[in-house]
């Protein structure tokens, strides 16, 4: 058992609360708190994607040769591909644990909106994979000789892009609960192409001193549409397991 004492109370708390007074935000906070504690008790959840990201980044100079000009021109694509793959690495764990131990059933039985549950799960996934990648991307950019001026656009595009990937990943995970992790990745990858194209375009445009704000706005728009649409579809996909 990974949890004891007060943590256990926090874990069981949402399941005991049936008073209608609690607001949606409270509910979101409770799930976030519970899942963060679970994630931090098992450090592999947030370290594995991070290490994977850095290892993949390191492989590119080894495979392509260490020329500075080559690496800096490839850097946007390399960083983005590594970020995409790393964020898909932990996708399978978004719902599988809760599904196995029955917490997911309890969430659905409780009268709180399941939309919020999915959104909280997406946020957790982003916090344990997207955020570490975001921080590590600066390191990757240094290794790959990306000019300093491109750091801000890179981080902005990764911020929007990794969150969208977490949304897509949640849907893939919900559709393939109990199946292999690679399946959820294959389901999700073709749909992540616009994110990849626009994300790399942001960084490449900033490399060429061009205006990249249009791509960032498009990514923001995709996120704005994606949060309600993909969360609702994910709820629908999760409910498939409870017929």
């Amino acid at each position, binding site marked *: 058992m990974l949890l004891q004492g007060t943590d256990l109370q926090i874990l069981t708390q949402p399941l005991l609360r049936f008073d209608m007074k609690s607001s949606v935000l409270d509910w979101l906070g409770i799930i976030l708190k519970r899942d963060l504690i679970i994630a931090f008790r098992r450090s592999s959840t947030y370290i594995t994607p991070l290490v994977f990201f850095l290892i993949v980044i390191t492989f590119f100079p080894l495979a392509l040769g260490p020329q500075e000009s080559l690496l800096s021109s490839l850097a946007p694509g390399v960083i983005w591909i590594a970020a995409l793959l790393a964020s898909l690495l932990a996708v399978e764990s978004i719902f599988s644990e809760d599904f196995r131990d029955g917490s997911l059933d309890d969430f659905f039985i409780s009268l709180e909106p399941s939309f919020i549950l999915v959104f909280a799960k997406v946020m957790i996934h982003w916090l344990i994979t997207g955020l570490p990648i975001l921080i590590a991307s600066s390191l990757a950019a240094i290794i790959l000789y990306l000019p300093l001026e491109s750091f801000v656009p890179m981080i902005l595009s990764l911020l929007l892009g990794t969150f969208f990937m977490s949304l*897509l990943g949640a*849907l893939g995970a919900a*559709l*393939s609960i109990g*199946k292999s992790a690679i*399946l959820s990745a*294959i*389901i999700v*990858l*073709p*749909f992540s*192409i*616009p994110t990849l*194209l*626009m994300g790399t*375009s942001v960084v*490449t*445009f900033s490399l060429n001193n061009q205006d990249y704000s249009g*791509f960032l706005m*498009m990514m923001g728009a*995709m996120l704005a*549409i994606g949060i309600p*649409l*993909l969360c609702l*579809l994910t709820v*629908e*996909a999760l409910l*498939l397991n409870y*017929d």
Partner: protein
Amino acid sequence: MGSPPLFYRWSSKIMPWLGILAIIFLSAGLFWGLLIAPTDYKQGDVYRILYVHVPSAILGQSIFMFMAACGLINVVWRAKISGMMLKSAAPIGMSFTLIALVTGSVWGKPTWGTWWVWDARLTSTLILFFIYAALIGLYSSIDDKTKADRAVSILSIVGLAIIPVIKKSVDWWQTLHQPSTFTLTSSPSMSPDMYQPLLLCVIGFYLIFAFTLTLNLRNEVIDRERSKNWVKQIFVN
């Protein structure tokens, strides 16, 4: 239409007609296009692959739209038949997309000098092919067929939302990397002698799709309802 036995009886009547019409349109269109239509003064006879390439590319896209519509109906109204329709249409759409890709690269070799160009249209067709593969992969991974239908429906709705974005972003990406060197076919510049057989071919391909879809769907209906009485009655008598 919604109930399987009704569909089965109804489709038995309509299917021969679909098949006959498809054969008429396709043979007329292909005969006209491949033998009668004038030779292109720049490309020679190579351009005639267009009579297969363009219809299959159109079909590849419109079958996806059809599938997404079925998916929406299946998710919102839980109509079983629309789920089966979605499932039956997927392999057909994937085949047409594959045909479009292969004929396109066969056409590209003599005219452009290369099998493959990272042109915006080619790229988005390739992505469409991968999306079909994802849908079919998801379907085959779930044992319960009604569940598999709903799962694929959900994913096809995402596809419907994201395909315009893919097209747009591929366009931007392509103009970023290289100026657009080739445009595939521009119909205004095409002479009516070449355009009319193409129209016949497109209609013929739609009919072939309708025919194979009905075949697949009947197969699916029989397979899922095999323990029902009406199926036994059909096959015992």
